[in-house]
């Protein structure tokens, strides 16, 4: 890792860590509220796969949802803030290549996602005991999911000229894809049509694969999930690097 890349990564991590109350504390609290409300209301009524309580089923979903949203939020909001305030020039003037630029923003966002995800996991330990059938799959999907959303955040942050455009991207793309991915339910409990729809949502595979790491059971094979998620990441990386190489909106 070059010094420039390390520095940009350090700066991006310091940026969210200095306001950790908002960037880590707040999302952990939100996830906790979801858990309290949903598990209280639904624990006895919703059936997921055999032998797994709804609350236990819900926790990995919440961990992953928080992780994904915060990874997205980190890269996208950092970029749009820098663009709007103009301090993006500080990273555009030095000899930093577009690949280093991409790597730093994605890695920092993955770190934020993992920190928030770990935070949610830690506070939920008080409420439910989880199995850890395949810890490596857990880590794999957590990291890959974070990287996918981080990449999407880079695209959104570069594309958006204003904060409300970014909010629109978040509300109309990221939120629906997360909520319709099986965070709160097993897609097998859905009508056939919605099951089919869920299968074209890449977020579904990230969450399903992540859950497999805990329970050793899932809606689809973790290998398929890994393939879909990995493919999504490669495609997004390719698209983002392309944007950066052309200087789209950054070096007009």
């Amino acid at each position: 890792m070059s010094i420039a890349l390390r520095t940009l990564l350090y700066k991006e991590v310091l940026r969210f860590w200095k306001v950790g109350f908002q960037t880590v504390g707040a999302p952990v609290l939100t996830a906790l509220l979801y858990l309290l409300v949903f598990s209280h209301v639904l624990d006895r009524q919703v059936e997921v796969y055999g032998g797994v309580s709804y609350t236990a089923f819900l926790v990995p979903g919440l961990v992953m949802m928080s992780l994904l949203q915060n990874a997205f939020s980190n890269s996208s909001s950092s970029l749009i803030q820098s663009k709007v305030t103009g301090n993006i020039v500080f990273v555009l003037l030095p000899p930093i290549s577009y690949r280093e630029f991409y790597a730093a923003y994605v890695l920092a966002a993955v770190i934020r996602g993992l920190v928030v995800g770990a935070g949610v996991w830690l506070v939920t330990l008080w409420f439910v005991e989880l199995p850890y059938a395949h810890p490596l799959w857990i880590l794999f999907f957590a990291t890959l999911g974070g990287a996918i959303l981080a990449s999407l955040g880079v695209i959104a942050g570069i594309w958006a000229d204003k904060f409300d455009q970014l909010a629109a991207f978040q509300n109309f793309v990221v939120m629906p894809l997360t909520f319709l991915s099986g965070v709160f339910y097993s897609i097998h409990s859905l009508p056939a049509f919605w099951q089919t729809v869920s299968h074209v949502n890449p977020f579904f595979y990230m969450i399903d694969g992540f859950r497999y790491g805990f329970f050793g059971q899932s809606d689809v094979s973790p290998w398929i999930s890994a393939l879909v998620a990995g493919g999504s990441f490669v495609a997004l990386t390719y698209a983002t690097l392309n944007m950066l190489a052309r200087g789209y909106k950054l070096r007009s």
Partner: protein
Amino acid sequence: MSDPSAALLIDGVCKRYGSLQALDHVSLTVRQGEFFGLLGPNGAGKTTLISLLAGLGRADSGVIRVMGHDVVDDYRDARRNLGVVPQELVFDPFFTVRETLRIQSGYFGLRRNDDWIDEILHHLDLHTKADVNMRALSGGMKRRVLVAQALVHRPPVIVLDEPTAGVDVELRQGLWAFVRDLNRQGHTIVLTTHYLEEAESLCGRIAMLKQGRVIALDNTADLLARPIQQMLRLRLRGDVALPADLHAVARATADGRVVLALENADAVSACLARLHAAGVGLEEIELVRPDLEDVFISIMQEAA
């Protein structure tokens, strides 16, 4: 495309924004060690040209080299050789002054740069602010940090885009003393400013830009020696107006006088006769040497 050792080589550079030709075949060379002024009215294209040098934008055509390094093909070396103080007063509100400078050093591949950072802080009178958050600094202090950020990697070529706009007199003088020092140590300085007297006293050579075109490029001394004009400075008696036919050559000074740019001595006497005939009384008459502002105005008018 001569002189491979030039600090800046700009050759045939064009840049369009939609239908606006922001730069139109701009060519100029800045030699190493020069103190160079880039002047022109608002919207002339100065900032655009600087953003192309710095790689913040891409030229539609033409070539730009910094210390011999192409800003596109060899952007890493080009940027290592260039320090830019941007026109806008930008800062990162998350960090202190020292953090800002350490981070900027890191972007240039430099670790443990604190000795040099301390030296810059000292020269810019910022050392007491090192651990203050950027948000808490006044505009003038933020401007100094921008200058410091441009210097962390000791670039041989330093470009300052209106560094003294909106800055108090004391800071202006301090800043110029520092920049002059840098120039004496061998750094090439390129400066844009609205204060023409600053450019006149600092810059050895000047390019004037208008609507994206270079309309003058010369040594400051030669620009000032242009055999253009006799500058007639007058204080009018009472509240009278100049005859309308003199408006084109007249401008008002800050202290309420009128300066007329006239071709030669004959024009001066004709003008005085004209004023007399029009019944305009005069309290004071002076012939003055044209300063850079007069030259600037006359060149801008010629190019119109």
